[in-house]
């Protein structure tokens, strides 16, 4: 395919993905907004004042970046996992497989679609948070960069999950039993400096901790871990997972007999 044809194919796929999650907005955009509003009300407004300050900021200000990141992670992941698995299940993935579209375009199309939803929900959650606090962004470029990279990383993760999944249960196992616990334990609601040394070291094995902390650093200018190191780790994860997903796609894993 020529570069123009590739651009048309990629745009077609991205647009289709965006149309999909906006068509079913009561399932995709509304629930995370309501859930996050609840977090802001309960943890930020009601319990937060009793907790006091966290790393020198009000508890509400401390949790806003973490909650935005949590919304981005779960929505990027679940969008690609459920959309690509639905394509497999309904066999509409064959539409793409019989076309001359290169596999990397198929992968990029779904990943960009997942990022669009993750970032869209992130933007909605940010708007909701404005009802509860004033947001000051210390490092805007870093904040934007890390949220885009995180959305990309978890979209690729969702794609791999969908390729490996044989039934709908398989696309809910990872978000429920892996992503949610890692996100909750990834410093969304607390600073790891509150933990005993042993659990601080265990927390450092959690990749989501790095994303939440870099994002929080972008907002508040504070972080539990070195920002440069975290950014490098996110980049490395993206490259490795993209290569794995593309290799699986080339091999027809889960989609070709």
């Amino acid at each position, binding site marked *: *395919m*020529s570069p*123009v*044809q*590739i651009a*048309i*194919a990629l*745009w*077609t*796929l991205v647009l*289709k993905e965006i*149309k999909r999650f906006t*068509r079913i907005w009561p399932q995709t955009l509304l629930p995370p907004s309501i859930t996050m509003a609840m977090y802001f009300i309960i943890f930020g407004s009601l319990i937060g004042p009793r907790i006091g300050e966290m790393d020198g900021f009000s508890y509400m200000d401390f949790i806003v970046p973490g909650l935005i990141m949590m919304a981005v992670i779960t929505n990027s992941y679940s969008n690609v996992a459920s959309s690509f698995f*639905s*394509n497999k299940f*309904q*066999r*509409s993935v*064959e*539409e*793409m*497989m*019989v*076309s*001359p*579209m*290169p596999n990397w375009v198929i992968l990029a199309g779904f990943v960009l679609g997942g990022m669009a939803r993750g970032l869209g929900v992130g933007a909605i959650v940010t708007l909701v948070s404005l009802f509860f606090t004033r947001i000051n962004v210390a490092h805007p470029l870093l904040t934007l960069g890390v949220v885009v990279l995180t959305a990309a990383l978890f979209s690729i993760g969702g794609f791999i999950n969908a390729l490996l999944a044989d039934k709908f249960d398989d696309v809910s196992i990872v978000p429920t039993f892996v992503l949610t616990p890692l996100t909750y334990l990834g410093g969304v609601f607390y600073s790891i400096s509150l933990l005993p040394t042993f659990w601080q070291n265990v927390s450092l094995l959690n990749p989501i901790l790095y994303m939440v902390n870099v994002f929080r650093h972008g907002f508040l200018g504070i972080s539990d871990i070195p920002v440069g190191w975290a950014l490098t780790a996110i980049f490395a994860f993206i490259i490795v997972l993209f290569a794995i997903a593309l290799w699986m796609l080339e091999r*027809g894993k889960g989609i*070709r*007999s």
Partner: protein
Amino acid sequence: MAEPALSIRGLTKVYGNGFHALKGIDLDVEQGDFFALLGPNGAGKSTTLGVVCSLVQKTAGRVSIFGIDIDRDFARAKYHLGVVPQEFNFNQFEKVIDIVLAQAGYYGMPRREALPRAEQLLKDLGLWDKRSGSARMLSGGMKRRLMIARALMHRPKLLILDEPTAGVDIELRRSMWEYMRRINREEGTTIILTTHYLEEAESLCRNVAIINRGEIVRNTSVRELLAELDTETFLLDLARPVEQAPHVEGFEVHRVEGAQLAVVVHRGQRLNDVFAALGEQGIEVVSMRNRANRLEEMFVSMVEQGNGVQRELDTVEVNK
């Protein structure tokens, strides 16, 4: 001489469970042909087409589409290929127009070209009024036509139809036949068809391959195949019912119902002799027709022969 639209050499497919679906088949389909690939369930038809469309990974062999080896440049080969699969494979929740436009996009067709093409195809296939509705609201026949429209969006030179009229009512089937004939005749699209309706193959196709147990057991023209037919069965409707099948010297006659007989006529025998013998016995024939379409008789006999040979081989294996 022009390259064949499809050329298959030594195509082999062994599935992960050890099932030998294709055993080194060779097949050529010439440009402009209307070709039938026939075979019983599990014979290897869909596996063959699946390899050609990249939905199934081959174990060995070579496949070329208009001279382009799929192992060398599958993407370029795919431009020539349109596929209408056996089962519905579109997102049922999408709009009809979105499904065909997305397919054009996957082939890199700009929207300004895709829109008029979609309009033309949806109108030709009677779906234009349904374009803004969700695909799941379409009837079974409409869904099949939607898949044909989708497959034709990028103007493929080779169209593969895997049981395109399964579950479609007779009237609609005839109109779909007419449409397929038209694109084959007027646009020169090569068509490969698999079907369970052998009447469909007999009516539409010029050449045919019969596949059984992963092997091509016959590859010839429909005309030649029919010329080889040794027997035909005719149903005779009688003016009055008969108690038992009458005896007609040299012919096999069965009583189907009270007022209907089935007569098996071998090559070289004359139907006039049957009428004469029945007339002598005071039996009056009102009308006559073929019991089944002729290709079906041929097909059943070939497949049964093949299975018979295989059963014998299986027995030998067991006795070892």
